[in-house]
């Protein structure tokens, strides 16, 4: 590329540093709020679309397929038992730093839901298809960490 060549003057590489000083505030929304509030009471909620019978966990305000609105009547508690769908042993955190202790992450198919749910896997010898159950945290505030994981 001629253009490229012509511009390969011996320029010092310079750059400007900058940040992005914002804080985001994400509301959990209509369905999210119900889900997180229930976690405080050790309840796992799913909701089911009447038209296609698909069950969402976490629940959704609408069925993405039928586009029906999923109102209060569509929510019900599931028992927290699940099947291990997939897992990974994680050695690095989101910044690329090595974790002191590797973390086991699982994908769970909860009984009573059609979706897959991600959380910590609290077993020493994981096997896909194994039966697991939710473990609750002592201190619950309405966050995803109200669950410790599945054992």
């Amino acid at each position, binding site marked *: 590329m001629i253009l490229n060549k*012509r*511009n390969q*003057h011996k*320029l010092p590489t310079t*750059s400007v540093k900058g*940040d992005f*000083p914002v804080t985001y505030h994400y*509301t959990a929304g209509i369905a999210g709020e119900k889900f997180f509030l229930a976690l405080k009471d050790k309840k796992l909620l799913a909701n089911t679309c009447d038209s296609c019978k698909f069950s969402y966990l976490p629940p959704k305000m609408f069925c993405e397929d039928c586009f029906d609105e999923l109102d209060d009547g569509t929510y019900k508690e599931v028992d927290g038992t699940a099947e291990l769908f997939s897992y990974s042993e994680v050695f690095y955190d989101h910044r690329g730093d090595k974790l002191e202790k590797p973390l086991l992450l699982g994908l769970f198919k909860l009984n009573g839901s059609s979706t897959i749910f991600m959380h910590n896997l609290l077993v020493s010898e994981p096997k896909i298809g194994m039966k697991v159950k939710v473990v609750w945290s002592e201190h619950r505030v*309405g*966050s995803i960490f109200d669950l410790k994981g599945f054992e």
Partner: protein
Amino acid sequence: MKVRGTKLTSDEFHNKVIAVKHAPEIEYDWATGVAISKFLKGLKDGKIIGVYCDSCDRTVTPPRMFCEECFSPMSKYVDLPDTGIINTFSIAYIKTDASRVEKPQLPAVIDIDGTSISPSGFLHLLDEINPDDIKIGMKVKAVWKDAIDRTGAITDIKYFKKMEDA
């Protein structure tokens, strides 16, 4: 027509509903590139650099590596005077983060002398002037930081001030 949506007060939004707060920890490192590197180096040397396009026969600043008009490469860098005229200005009481200030900042677009289109210049600040006296078309001159304090940044020019009648 029934429109929907759930209105939250500031208190509900910040303290009542379930929400997650997150401040992304991102730092950027933007390469200044071919043309702006020259421009910033020029500022460090106390000069305003422009660039000339052969096919359009025009000089513009800030310099760019290519002419957005005729799409030819641009590589004839020229030194421009550090004077110009006020193209437009504001008397601003609102800062970047939307907080308010008592003493206004005076942003202006300065049309740099020696360029061949109008306007051709950049955003900067005015000072040493009573805000009420600022006028579009007023001649201004750059006030530079001391050479030792210049780092190759747009802020190497502290501000522009009104030129005394020559």
